[in-house]
Structure formats: structure tokens, C-alpha cells
């Protein structure tokens, strides 16, 4: 065959391959998202709460710890807040319950205080100056929820807003896995 036609066929084939590649797309349906930190010791976090109390993550070994990265103007964060309140209260009521913390992402103390006064939730809110904690966890967009086990290992990362019962179910699953 003439080289020009071979060339034309080759180009056509490549283009069709490109189209085919784009048509094949698989959705991801797991609740948990990927992260290089999963199954690894959590990063060493030392910061203060917005009430100027010191906080060191390593000192919380022995409890399940839940970090929720939050910003008071982010729409999904506001939407998931009631579910978080329910979850935190449920955990506080049970023995051996998880400790819930909000990590403030790129927001002012005053705005955070106002939000929580208006919407409830009296757990500790942690300052994150310059986004160092966010970078340490690899958090790019809020909201994100992270669960760390009592041995200090990262167990779960949830991207985006959670709905009622999701966190409770995940905690139950993780606790069961820890006991077995």
C-alpha cells in the first residue's frame, strides 16, 4: 500500500484509540479514598486549639481520633455539619468513644467560633497555620474526614461531605476489624 495511505490509516487508528480510551471509564464507589498514608503512622501534629490550648496528636494514642478538615464558607462542609454533630455526640456517650477534632483550613478563628455557636458542636477546633497540617495529611480540598486508630495509624480517608450514619458505620467496621 502507498505510504501515504499507511500514514493515514495509522493516524486514523491512533485517533480511534484515543476515542476508545476516553469511552472506557470506570467509577470508584468505595467510601474511603486512597492516600499514601493509609496504614501508616499518622504525621506528627503539634498545634493549638482556637482557645489557645496545646494539642499534640501523638498524645492521643489510646483513643480513636477523627479529624475533620473544615472551612466555614465551604458549602459541603456546612451541609455535613449536622451529621458530624450527631456522630460526635454518639461517640462521646460511649466508653472508648472516638475523639472528634475540627482542623480549621484557611479560615479565621472568629468565623469558626461564630459558626459553631450558631450550629452547635463543642469539640476542640485546631488551628492550622499556613496549612501545615493539611499538607502533612495531603488534604487539598475541604471537607475531608480522617480516622486514626488508637495505635496512631491512619485507617480511613473520606473525601467530600458525609451523610448521616456513614461515620458511625465506618467506625463500627474499623472497631470490629481491630478486635478480630
Amino acid at each position, binding site marked *: 500500500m*502507498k505510504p*501515504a*495511505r499507511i500514514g*493515514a*490509516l495509522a*493516524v*486514523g487508528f491512533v*485517533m*480511534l484509540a*484515543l*476515542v476508545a*480510551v*476516553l*469511552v*472506557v*471509564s*470506570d*467509577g*470508584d464507589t468505595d467510601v474511603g479514598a486512597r492516600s499514601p498514608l493509609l496504614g501508616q503512622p499518622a504525621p506528627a501534629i503539634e498545634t493549638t486549639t482556637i482557645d489557645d490550648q496545646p494539642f499534640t496528636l501523638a498524645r492521643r494514642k489510646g483513643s480513636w481520633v477523627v479529624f475533620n478538615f473544615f472551612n466555614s*464558607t465551604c458549602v459541603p462542609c456546612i451541609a455535613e455539619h449536622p451529621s458530624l454533630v450527631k456522630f460526635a455526640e454518639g461517640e462521646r456517650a460511649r466508653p472508648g468513644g472516638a475523639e472528634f477534632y475540627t482542623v480549621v483550613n484557611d479560615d479565621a478563628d472568629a468565623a469558626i467560633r461564630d459558626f459553631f455557636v450558631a450550629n452547635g458542636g463543642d469539640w476542640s477546633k485546631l488551628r492550622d497555620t499556613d496549612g501545615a497540617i493539611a499538607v502533612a495529611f495531603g488534604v487539598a480540598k475541604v471537607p475531608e474526614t480522617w480516622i486514626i486508630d488508637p495505635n496512631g495509624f491512619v485507617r480511613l480517608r473520606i473525601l467530600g461531605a458525609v451523610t448521616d450514619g456513614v461515620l458511625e458505620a465506618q467506625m463500627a467496621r474499623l472497631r470490629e476489624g481491630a478486635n478480630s
Partner: protein
Amino acid sequence: MLVASATAHLGRAILLVGFLAAFFGVFAAAVGARRNDRKTLRLVPRFVLLSTAMAVAAFAVMEWAMITRDFSLEYVQKVGSRSTPPLYNFAAVWSALEGSILMWVLVLAGYLAAAAWWMRKRMNEPLIAWAMAVMFAVLAFFFLLSYGPANPFVIGPPGVTDGPGPNPLLQNHILVMFHPPILYLGYVGMTVPFAFAIAALITGKVEDGWLHLTRRWTVAAWGFLTFGIALGGWWSYEVLGWSGVWAWDPVENASLLPWITGTAYIHSVMVQERRGLLRVWNVSLLIATFSLTILGTFLTRSGVLNSVHAFSESDIGPWLLVSFGVIVAVSLVLIFLRGDQLRAGGSVESLFSREGAFLVNNVLFAVFAFVVLLGTVFPLVVEAIQQRQIVVGEPFFDQLTVPIGLTMLFIMAVAPVLPWRRDGSETLSQRLLGPSVFGLACIAISLVAGAAGLAPLLAFGLGGFAAGSALRHLWRAVRVQRLRGFVGRANGGMIVHLGVILICVALAASNSFTRSQEIDLVVGRVASFAGHTFELVDVVEQRDARSQSVRALVSVDGGRAYAPSITKFTRIGMNVGTPSVRTTLTHDIYLTLEPPVRQDSGQARIKVFIKPLILWLWIGTFVMAFGTLLAVLPMRRRRHREAPSIHDLRDEAIDA
């Protein structure tokens, strides 16, 4: 409520009529061309008029809705706002997907009308009629997009009285008015030569008549595309605040790809005009240019680059992808079928002839386009195969395009002095000695000025080499023809080359020799960096309906104050940093204000970039624009527009 829905329905009705006009126009032109039926062909101008009128009307309705803040429309809810200044509000129409497709329709209809008017006396020729048919088909497709998946006239939820306005980055600078329309004049303009190429393939009239017809259109569209891309770079520099002009992100690459193949085309086409060679190359380049405009729009609008999954969820993605596939398939089939007729009576004798140089140039630009396309699309491929996301960014493109750019400079130097039809390696050594000395001098001067590094020095040297060659050509033309030595395709082209060289040299300098430093300024104390002093005069706060901004007034070298700022747009909650630039011929001093800014503290942290030769990027752009203008100006009035005149030939024969 009634009035509101009237606007939406009116708009959609206009789009529907426009689509039908274009749709039937396809048949009128195609059937009339095939049967050589004059009566049918007489319908063509009417359909042109109707579809163009509908395009203008649809755009006008959209603008009217935007200007009157008609928040019943979902699109106005998305990008309109009561507090946006009028000029930016007008431009807000094309700040999101639906509005830009509408603008595409408008520009395309405008080109269709212009082409139809220009060809009005020759509408009966099959070539012209088929070209009209192809243009109608493309216009119909875009009307359909605008009527269907990219509908700007969707009625939004009721009760909305204000909107967020366009992205704050689009409200900072008047340039936003001009960058997209000019880019579209370039992008969409490529449809015209494409239509003629397809028409030539269909009719089998693949000799060069259609080329001569469309030559000026192509160069003009190319000129707009070039200027639009440069404006994008200027906007990036002035507004975005990272101090650079080009980031190799997918949107930029999408506009660059058709430019690359378009540039190859306007060079390679000279070989076809002169000797009828490289026909398959030319037809392929032209089809590639048009296809890449569609592919580029697909890549940037379908969300596929965020994630492959986003693509299948987007409305417009599949449409664009399918249309791209159809265009490529149809074109390949046509080239396949007409392959024999495309074969020329003659061949390129030697790589060291003018034709050979253009052939090498085609290869070079093909590799360039491949690199940019591969880099842009590669993350998709990897994600589809391995389900993991990778990023291909600036380091990859810089690494691979630098050698391509240097080779391009070299060819720019060599090609204009090569003769047609024969091996000119002998004459090279004679004619290029002067330019090579000039190149050497450029390297020496830059070394004295402190330059370092192999790639930038090569860029300076080859740039000087190429400039010497271009100046040599111009000088000889002016000597023979005086002022007319600046006009016409070859001479205008040399001036465009000078512009390109200025841009390449400026890019090499600013990419390699930028200095930067972060300085904590305190009022009353003077800091210094890179031979300049900076003094913080004041930190000023400003508040208005839409935003509050903090500006740091910095006095540079004891002179006037430059004010980089950070603006918080309260409604959207977005922080936008605005740089402040002091421009001189040798370098720019680029200042940005870094967060966090503590008001009333008398302190500010600024970042200073010393960027060499940036001004020459813009000077080079204007030289290119000027050269393009000179290139499309007719040298003398001609009776026959088809054949190149003796004067064109003489002008190119300066170096024969």
C-alpha cells in the same frame, strides 16, 4: 415571569431557526453543487443571510438578558451580578461554557457571511458551493450544540435576584474583553480554509486554485490566533500573579496546537503554490488545524482532564468527541480516495533547497504538535489504563520544546537563503556568513551581560543568526524595491520572523535568568535586592460593594510607588492577588503581596521577581502583528486573484 420565559423561549427559537437555516443550507449548497443547479444555488446566499441573522440575534438576546440583569435565566444567575461594572458584565457572556459556544456560533456565522459575500459572484462554481456546504455543516453543528447540550437559555430556579458574577480573575483587567474574541477570530477563522480544502477534495479540484483563494484568510486567521495567544500570555502575566506568561496548562495547549499546525501550513503552502508539491502535507495540516480546534475545545470544556470520569458525566463532552471523530474519519476517507489526484508532477530534489527546508519544517512542527498533544492527553491514557492519576506539566514541555525551538530558529535562518529547485548548500556558506557573525556577536554580548547556561546562549546565538538572515533579506528587498520591499508575503514574513525571534530570545532570557526574593518590608526601612531598593510607604485598605482589598505601596528605587494587592471578593469568598509591575527595556520588576497581611501593622511581605527582557515579548508580538499585516497587503492590484503575480514571484526570487 411571562417576560422572563419569553426571553428564554425567544432565544431558543432563534437558535432553532438558525440551526434549520444552516442545516438546509448544507443541502442547498451540496445538492446545487452536485447537480450544478443554479436555482438551488441561488438559495445559498439566502440561507447564509438567515443563519447569520439568527446568530447575531441569539447573541444579542443573550447580551440583552445580561445587561438587563435578567436573573430568570440560569446562565445569568451563574455569571451575572448587579455589582459587576457594565463592561465586565458585557464580557461575562463569554466567561462560561454556554456563552462561549454562542460566541463561537456568532463568529462562525460572521466568517460564513464574509466568505459568501466575497465569493458572491462565483457561487455557481462547485468548489465554492461545496465549501459553503461544509461551512454550513459546521455552523449547523454549533447551532445544535447551543440549542441542546450547551443551552444558554435555560430557565433557572425562580426568585433569584442577584448572582455571583464572573470569576474575579476575569474582572481585574480590561483585557478580558479582548482575549477570547480575538482568540475565537483565529480559532474559528480556520474553518474557512478547512472548508475549501474539503471542497477541493470532494470536487477533485485539488490543484491550487483553492489555495490562492484562501491564502489571505488563512494568514489573517493565523494572525488573530497568534495575537490571541499572546494576549493570553499577557493576561497571565498581568493578572494571575505568578510572574510568568505560559504555564503549559491544558487550556493554553489547546490554543497552541492549532497554531502549530497552522504555522506549518502557511509555510508549507508556499511550496504548493510555487511548484505544486506537498499537497497531501498541506491538506493534512489544514484538516489537522481545524480538527485540533475541536479537540482542544473538547479537552478543555468536557472536564475530561480533571478526571476521565468527569467526561462521561459532562453534557457537551461526548458531542465534541464524536464530532472530532467524524471530522477525522471523513477527512481520512477523502484523502484516501483522492490520493492519486493529490500526487504532484514533480518532486523535491534536495533537502538543501527551499522546498526541502519547508519539508524539514513540516516534520519539525509535526513533532512539536505531537509533543504538545501527547503531553496534554497522556494523563488521560494512563488513567484509563492504570486507574491512577498522573500529571504532565511544565518540566516535560520545557525539556522537549527547547530543542525544537532552537531547531526552529536554525531553520528560520537557513531557509530564506536557500534557492528553489536545486541544492543550495554552496550558497549557504556564502550568504549566511554575515548572519553567523551577527549570531556570534549576540552570544558575546549576552555573555558580557552575564548570561549563562547552554540553552539560553544557544537561543541568543541562533536568534541572532536568524535575525541576521531576515535582515539580510529585507535589506536586499528594500534596496531593489524601496518601501515596497517591506510589503508582500516574503518581506512581511521576514518581519514576522523578526518578531518571533524577539519573542524566543525574551522567553529564553526570562525563563533562565529570573531572580526572585521574598522580602519582609517595614514602613520606614529600606530593603535592597538585585541592585534595586524597596521601601514600604504605606499599607492601604479599600472596601466596596463587591470586595475589600489591601494594597501595599512600595517605592522602588526611591521613585513612584507600586501597589501589589490582595483582594477578597466577599460574596464568593475568593482571594485574588494582583501584581504590580515596573517595566523597563531591560527587565521588569514584578511585585506581589504575600498573605497573610496584617492590617495596620506597617508591615508587608512582598515577593520580588526581576524578570529580564519581558517587554520584548510584547514588542515581538506587535512586530509579528505588523508583519502579518504587511504580508496580507496586496503588492499591486491584480486582475486575476488566482495565480501569484509576477511581483510575488520576483519578491521571492530575491534570493533565487
